[in-house]
């Protein structure tokens, strides 16, 4: 058998350089095939949506779809806001606000809403435990022990600010990035 491997002549720079160039070209082909599975331009373009708030009366809530996920928009009553404000942050299982508009801040009720619009609560309606959609949007729904939302799958209770109070869920309901385009219109995303 030819001892090609032992022959120093064969391992010359030219062969190595040529092989390296060829290999680099082949490797560079990989990225397009990986990236094509990422969200395409159409999906990225639908990244934000605008919602008209006028039809939502006080005490009512609606659910809208955004990036394929349900978003809870609640027009809270003064009482609900009061109740949420009274809770000390230290009592909360999750002390972080989980508000993308105010990242890292503590979970006070102020930090869960936008300044000047504390009656409006906007959250992603997916339980942070294992992904079910909590009950509490419609008037007939059970709202759990803290008057907010209740997840029927494994018994997580959220309060009137959407924060987890009892049950297996580890985090408060996430607040997506959103802003008030006008007093009656928000843009999510």
């Amino acid at each position, binding site marked *: *058998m030819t001892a*090609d491997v032992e022959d120093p002549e064969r391992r010359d720079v030219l062969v190595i350089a040529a092989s390296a160039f060829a290999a680099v070209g082949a490797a560079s082909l990989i990225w397009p095939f990986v990236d094509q599975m990422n969200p395409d331009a*159409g999906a990225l373009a639908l990244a934000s949506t605008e919602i008209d708030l006028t039809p939502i009366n006080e005490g009512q809530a609606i659910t809208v779809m955004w990036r394929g996920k349900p978003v809870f928009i609640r027009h809270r009553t003064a009482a609900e806001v009061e109740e949420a404000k009274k809770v000390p942050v230290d009592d909360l299982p999750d002390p972080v606000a989980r508000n993308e508009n105010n990242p890292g801040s503590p979970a006070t009720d102020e930090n869960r809403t936008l300044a000047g619009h504390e009656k409006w609560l906007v959250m992603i309606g997916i339980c942070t435990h294992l992904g079910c959609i909590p009950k509490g949007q419609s008037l007939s729904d059970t709202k759990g022990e803290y008057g907010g939302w209740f997840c029927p799958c494994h018994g997580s209770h959220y309060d009137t600010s959407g924060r987890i109070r009892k049950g297996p869920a580890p985090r408060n309901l996430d607040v997506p990035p959103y802003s008030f385009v006008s007093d009656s219109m928000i843009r999510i995303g």
Partner: protein
Amino acid sequence: MSSHESSYEPKSATAKWWDERLPLPRLMYDQFIEFPTPRNLNYMWTFGGILTFCLVAQLITGIVLAMHYIPSGGEAFDSVDRIRRDVNYGWLIQPMHAVGASMFFLAAYLHTFRGLYYGSYRAPREILWILGVFILLAMMATAFMGYSLPWGQMSFWAVTVITNLFSSLDQIIPGLGTSIVQWLWGGYSVSGVTLTRFFSLHYLLPFVIFGLVILHVWALHVCGQNNPTGIEIKTKSDSVPMYPYAISKDVFALFIFVIIFAWFMLFLPDYLGHADNFVKADPLVTPPHIVPEWYFLPFYAILRAIPDKLGGVIAMFASIAILAFVPWLDRSPVRSTKYRPIYKWFFWLFVFACLALGYLGAKPAEGTYVFWARVFTFYYFAHFLIVMPILGSMETPKSMPGSITEAVLGKGDKSATRSAPAGAPLGAPAAPEDR
């Protein structure tokens, strides 16, 4: 597999462990590293590697496209458009697949013509050759169905025309042709139903091709490659190990091929296709010129050359089927055309006939075009049925060398004469002995 002993020696403990359980490394070593290949192979022998690359490229780009493509009559065209416009790198992957099909056939035809010229179909390589014919057939079926998938005007009408051909069977058994056509269509006309089943089969067939290719390479490795002299390997000096010799040649040739591939894909992605396929399929509007892709043009010319519908269909299928009989049609005592001075002319005439038929396939079936299509169709079949058998037994071949080594080194140089590269001692271990 081949007749020689395996000289693979597992070096590490892990290698030994594998070797005792599933000797894949041994297989790879024996068949693709140490395998003796004739030392005189020219660049026409690089197309096997190139074709493997094409198959893998089509499989990968195809599977990726299938993640975004929607095989329904209503959405197919729009989904392809969306791939080109919105999918990340879709503008690159889609033409890679479309141009890749053309490149696949270019390589396949060159590979086939190489076989015809050098007599690679002759004993003991008959099954190898026939497997190749089946691969070609499977490629054609795959390409035909693949072309329907964008559901443009040309996609739709090509399917209509070609599937309608089967209705000519009604001339043999009344009703048979029509039933077959409706069975293919899944309805009374070509529709989205047809498209969806073509998508399923188009996804399936390349894996069938893959299996056929494995058998093809297996059959090849039983007897080894042919070579330009047509004389089999007799002694060690006739061959070189596949790695690094044949492999380095294959990789270089592959890159030349990729340059052509990239040229079309990036500068001329629409050149090999038809403008009409950028119009959504419309069953009520027939394009003025229905033309298949270039690689089907010779067969299309043969189809239209025969005035009778059934006759045309039979001729078209026969023009592919006849390839399978070539090992028995060629009656020359000599394998390679290199030593057949008269047959050489007929071979090139055959190549010209195929090119001419390709050109004529794109022209309307009128006037002088029909006349020449008939002339070249006649020659196409005459080449196999008349020239191959008769000329083979009549011709006096040129004098042939005794062996591959003799062909390469010349008659008086059977001993180890070789020009040593500067600085290397004679008899350096890397050099094959007696070269």
